[in-house]
């Protein structure tokens, strides 16, 4: 039975000041038919908590100031501990080129840089969300 609910995406960010991209992307995702859970400013611990409570299909994490390779391992570690390691994570914000490779190796599904066209962002997130829905319903079907 395919899941008919709207795709749900959690958006979180790591700092207090920079939020333009966060809101622009939230609005674009909503217009593209997603249900957007606004996590606001969250620590990795908070993100995992909200992602599980809200049962989201994708987590979008906005990171500033060149620390993605520090924050993502913490996020994944927390997901390992509390569950939700299968929720795909995408990252946006300030991601230096050489860190993008590191992030993808860690398991980040996609990385968006400033001025990525909005339509491209929403389409790529939709594909990732749908893929997860499919693999989830497959594994549900396999349950006895």
């Amino acid at each position: 039975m395919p899941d008919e609910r709207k795709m749900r995406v959690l958006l979180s960010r790591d700092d207090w000041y920079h939020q333009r991209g966060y809101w622009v992307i939230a609005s674009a995702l909503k217009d593209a038919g997603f249900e957007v859970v606004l996590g606001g400013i969250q620590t990795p611990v908070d993100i995992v908590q909200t992602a599980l409570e809200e049962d989201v299909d994708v987590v979008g994490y906005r990171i500033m100031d060149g620390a993605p390779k520090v924050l993502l391992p913490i996020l994944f570690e927390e997901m390992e501990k509390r569950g939700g390691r299968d929720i795909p994570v995408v990252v946006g914000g300030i991601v230096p080129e050489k860190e993008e490779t590191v992030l993808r190796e860690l398991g980040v599904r996609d990385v968006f840089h400033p001025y990525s066209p909005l339509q491209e962002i929403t389409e790529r997130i939709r594909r990732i969300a749908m893929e997860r829905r499919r693999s989830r319903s497959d594994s549900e079907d396999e349950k006895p």
Partner: protein
Amino acid sequence: MNKSQVMEELKEIQARYEDEVTRLLQKLPEGDREYFTPSGLPVKPLYSPADVPDFEYTADLSFPGRFPYTRGVFPAGYRTRGLHIRQVTGFGTAEETNKRWRFLLSHGANALSVVPDDGSGHRADSDDPRVRGLVGKGGVALDTLYDYETLFDGIDIRKYSVHLITTNAYGLACYLALAEQRGIAPSELRGSMSNWMRPDTECLDILEYCARNVPLFNAGYLDMRNVREGGCTAAQEIGFGVAVAMAGCDALLERGLEVDDFLHRLTWFINAGPEFFEEVAKFRALRKVWASVFRDRYGAKDPRSLMCRMHCQTYAPTLTIQQPFNNLIRSTVYAMAAVMGGVQSLHVNSFDEALSIPTEFSALLSVRTQQILDLETGITKVVDPLGGSYYVEWLTRELEREALDIVEQVQKRGGGFKAWDWMCREIRAAAVKAQAAFDRGDRKLVGVNTLVEEEDIQMKALRVLEKHAEFEALFEYSTEFAEKQIRRVEKVKRERDEEAVVRAREELAGAMREGRNMVPPLVEAVKQGLTRGEFARVKAEVYNSPGEGPYVCAPPAVLA
């Protein structure tokens, strides 16, 4: 001919000229015929006195240092009040940030600003596992008075104007305690903080305490710069800011203060964006709107209350990862608008800010940009050098009119505090609109949607610099900062007198419960070693809420 006949004749000539221009423009493809500023004002190819027909020099402009202050707040401009070169600084622990401050000062920066790290808003100390990964990131880790002592080590706070980027009474308390250690009386202490006007006890306690006890400290703040970064227009930057200031004013009048007790201690944090002339006009229009609103509606009499002073940071959303050295040119032009607009204090963004936080190398270039503008270009010689330009005067009037209209719209929705959510929606709508214009290519950004390079030679150059062993080309966050900071917090917690901390904490909580001003007991508590996380927890307990103000995140919600 009398004056009105001259104007009529001019209008006739101008009408013929504009017809000719229209004919020329009609030969262009449709999209190239009309121009607008980013605020949406239509822009003609030429302006003349006919565009500002009822312009009155004395009423509209007067002289710098005189009402309505359109041309500037100080009579001799930068000649007597030189530009404050103030670069926002903050990374790692207080040691790293202090070192960067000294570096900047030794190269001619003459004012300071400090930004706390991303861990500091989470009601936790740096040794709390919740803020792992955020310690010393995006700013400096400041947990206790000890950190402030280290931060200000060797820095003369009588000599340099210091700005604390915090809305939190904790930062102020540490600064007051530090001044006391150095024998500086509260009545002599200068400086400023980002205590931006909002309807919470902490904000108003800070304003009230400083108005009564620290009269030279700029305790109130209108952070419209970050609102502009969020996407709003130049007119909204003025209008929303003035409306919020009015709401803060009302709240302080209710506490029994007089408008002239505090109004001159509110300062602006403002942006300088890409549209050069509109930005110059914005600073001028803001000064005029501020002076008229607070004189006419609030009865402010002290000229200092009517003088709108501004710290400016150049616009960042147009800084690009692509061709990163182009950002030097962008920020220089934005800074020119700020200086020609007469700001008091300036931060010029570094070229690498779309990639990371600035290094010594890039921060120094930002200082040099300001020094070159000041020492080499002559733009600081004359006050309001663009005053009298028909275009700039027309823009100033348009922005003034629009900003006053926005103030009315906010008032209709209950004023600057109550209508904050409405303003946020307006700001976000403007951001979405601007993004769509970039995506369509209607608004150009070199290296992003036009003049894109397959081989980015500037990026290549940056990579070469990065490979240089003795040179930090791009800042990288290190977890060593956090390890060091955790040791610093633990040291304070180990060495402090726990009983004294408990007593000070109780005293503080008692004052807050009874509605007394929280600042005096907080100063005592920080001296005993109370940490910022402990203060945040007292606030959460007393107010029986997760916290107040924009720095405490709303619980997750679905976007409506």
